[in-house]
C-alpha cells in the first residue's frame, strides 16, 4: 500500500510538472507580454505625457494583427481616455494583481488576463491579452492530465490490492508451514501453486532448505545415536575390566594389566572423537587456507612404502600404478590421510593371497586415485550410506574400526571440490578419489 501511495504521489507530481511545463508556460508567456507592454507604455508616458500615451495605445491597437490586445486608459474619474473597452471593469481594483476578465468580442464571449497600472496624476491604465485560445488549450491539457492521474490512481489501487492479496496468500502459506514446523511437524512443506512463478520458486527454495535442514538433523541424530551406541561398548568394557580388577586382581601385575587394557579401550574412544573432530574441521572448510600446488605421486609412493609392509605381513600384495608426476591443488596432509584410509580399508578387507592395486591417473577433469581391493565389496544398497559417520556394513562387523574412514575421505573430496566414487571391482571394491585439475581449483 505504501508503494501504491508513493506511485500515485509520483504520478501526481509528474502531472503537476507537465501542467506547469505546458499550460503554465502559456500563462507565463502572456504575463511576460503584458509586463513588456506595460514597460513600453510607461516609457511613452514618461517621454510625452498623456497625448503620447493615447497615440501609442491607438497605434498598438491598430497594429494588433493577433487581435488579442486589450487596453484601457482612464482619467482620475475612471472615464475612458483611450483603449478598446467600453468602461473600466469594476472587478479590477488593485494594481500589480492579475485578473481574469470575461470579454465579448464580435458576439463571442472570451476570457482576458489583465493587470492594472496606476499612472501619475490619477490616471489608470489597464493592459491585457485575450487568452481564450490559450485557456482552451490549458483546459484541454488540464483535463487530460487529471484523467491520466485518475487512471493512474485507479490502476495503482487495483494493482496494490491484487499484489497485496497475492502476497497475503503466499505469506499465509509460508506462515502456516513455519507454524507447523515450530509445533514439531517437520514433514510440512510450503504448497506450490503450480504456476511456476517467483512465489513458486521461493516456495521451492524454502522447501529445499527445509529438506536440507531435515537431512542435517537426521545426520546429527544418527551421529548422536551412533556415538551413544558405538562408544557404550568400549566404555562398558573398560569399566568392567577395572571393576573386575578391583575385585579380583590378586597382585599388582594383574591390576596393572587390567588398567592397561582399559586404557587401550579409552584410547580407542579418544581416537574416534579425534576422527569426528577432524571430519567436522574438514567440513567447516577451515583447511582451505593450507591449499597449495603439490605433486601427489610422491605421496602415493610414501603410502605404498608404508602399507607395503603391513600388506606383506597379511599376505596381500600392494601394487602401485602411478605416473611420475601428478599435479594437484589442495591440502597435502588431507589428501595423504584420505588415500591412506582407502588403502588401509583395502588391505584390511582383502583376504590373504589377494592383491590391492593403488592406481592414479590424470583425466580431463583432473586427477583420479583409485584403490581396488579383492574383499567382499559393498552391496549396492549400502553404497550411498557407506560414507556416513559410524556406518559399518555387514562384512565389516568383524573387522576393527569405527566407521569413520570413508566419511573422512568423503569430507576431504568435497573440501577439494572433488568426489568419492564407490564401484564394484568384481570381486571387491574400487574406491576412486577424484580431484579437479589444479587450474580449475585455483581459479575458484
Amino acid at each position, binding site marked *: *500500500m505504501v508503494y*501504491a*501511495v508513493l506511485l*500515485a504521489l509520483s504520478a*501526481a507530481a509528474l*502531472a503537476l510538472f507537465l*501542467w506547469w511545463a505546458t499550460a503554465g508556460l502559456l500563462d507565463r508567456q502572456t504575463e511576460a507580454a503584458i509586463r513588456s507592454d506595460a514597460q513600453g507604455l510607461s516609457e511613452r508616458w514618461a517621454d510625452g505625457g498623456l497625448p503620447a500615451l493615447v497615440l501609442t495605445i491607438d497605434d498598438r*491597437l*491598430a*497594429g*494588433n*494583427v493577433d*487581435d488579442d490586445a*486589450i487596453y484601457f486608459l482612464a482619467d482620475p474619474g475612471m472615464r475612458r481616455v483611450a*483603449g*478598446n*473597452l*467600453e*468602461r473600466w*471593469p*469594476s*472587478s479590477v481594483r488593485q494594481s500589480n494583481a492579475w485578473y*481574469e*476578465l*470575461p*470579454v*465579448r*468580442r*464580435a458576439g463571442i*464571449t*472570451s476570457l482576458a488576463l489583465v493587470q492594472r497600472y496606476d499612472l501619475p496624476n490619477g490616471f489608470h491604465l489597464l493592459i491585457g491579452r485575450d487568452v481564450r485560445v490559450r*485557456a482552451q488549450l490549458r*483546459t484541454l491539457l*488540464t483535463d487530460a492530465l*487529471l484523467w491520466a*492521474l*485518475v487512471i493512474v*490512481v*485507479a490502476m*495503482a*489501487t487495483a494493482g*496494490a*490490492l491484487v499484489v*497485496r492479496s497475492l502476497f497475503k496468500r503466499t505469506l499465509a502459506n509460508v506462515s502456516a508451514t513455519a507454524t507447523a514446523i515450530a509445533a514439531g511437524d517437520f514433514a510440512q512443506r510450503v504448497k506450490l501453486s503450480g504456476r511456476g512463478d517467483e512465489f513458486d520458486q521461493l516456495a521451492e527454495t524454502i522447501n529445499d532448505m527445509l529438506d536440507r535442514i531435515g537431512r542435517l538433523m537426521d545426520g546429527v541424530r544418527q551421529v548422536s545415536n551412533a556415538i551413544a551406541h558405538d562408544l557404550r561398548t568400549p566404555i562398558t568394557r573398560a569399566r568392567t575390566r577395572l571393576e573386575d580388577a578391583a575385585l579380583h586382581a590378586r597382585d599388582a601385575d594383574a591390576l596393572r594389566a587390567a588398567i592397561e587394557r582399559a586404557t587401550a579401550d579409552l584410547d580407542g574412544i579418544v581416537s574416534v572423537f579425534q576422527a569426528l573432530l577432524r571430519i567436522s574441521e574438514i567440513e567447516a572448510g577451515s583447511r582451505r587456507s593450507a591449499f597449495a600446488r603439490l605433486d601427489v605421486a610422491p605421496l602415493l609412493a610414501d603410502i605404498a612404502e608404508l602399507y607395503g609392509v603391513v600388506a606383506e605381513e597379511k599376505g596381500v600384495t600392494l601394487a602401485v600404478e602411478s605416473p611420475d608426476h601428478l599435479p594437484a591443488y589442495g591440502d597435502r596432509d588431507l589428501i595423504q590421510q584420505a588415500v591412506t584410509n582407502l588403502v588401509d580399508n583395502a588391505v584390511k578387507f582383502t583376504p590373504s593371497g589377494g592383491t590391492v592395486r593403488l592406481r592414479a591417473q590424470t583425466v580431463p577433469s583432473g586427477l583420479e586415485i583409485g584403490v581396488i581391493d579383492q574383499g567382499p565389496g559393498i552391496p549396492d544398497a549400502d553404497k550411498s550410506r557407506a560414507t556416513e559417520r559410524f556406518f559399518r556394513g555387514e562384512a565389516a562387523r568383524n573387522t576393527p574400526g569405527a566407521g569413520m574412514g570413508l566419511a573422512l575421505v568423503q569430507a576431504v573430496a568435497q573440501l577439494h571440490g572433488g568426489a568419492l566414487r564407490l564401484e564394484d571391482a568384481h570381486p571387491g571394491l574400487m574406491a576412486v578419489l577424484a580431484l579437479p585439475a589444479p587450474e580449475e581449483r585455483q581459479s575458484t
Partner: protein
Amino acid sequence: MSRVARIYGLTGLLLCLSAWMALAPVSGQPAPQQITTDTPQYCLVLLDRVSELVRGLAAPPPQEITNLSTDGQRMCEQGQTRGGIMRLREALVMLRTQARQR
C-alpha cells in the same frame, strides 16, 4: 475491501477532486465587457489610417498592401468585421514598415 484499501481509495479520490477544484475555472464571473475594436466603426477608423499612410507615400504602395486594404474594406462592408479588421491591420503594419524603411 479492507480498511487500508478504503483509506487509500478515499485519499486518491480526494486528491483528484482537490486538483480538479484547484484548476477548474471559477464560476460567478462579472458580465463580459464588450471589445470596441472589432466593430464596423473600427473598420472605418483603420481604413482612414491606411488611407492616410498611403497618401503620405511618395510612390504607390505595393500590390500586396493594396490587396489587403481592398479585401479588408470589402469584408467589413459584407459584415465579416473581424476578418476585415485583420486584413486592414496587416496592411497598416506593412505600410508602417515601409514608411520606416524610407
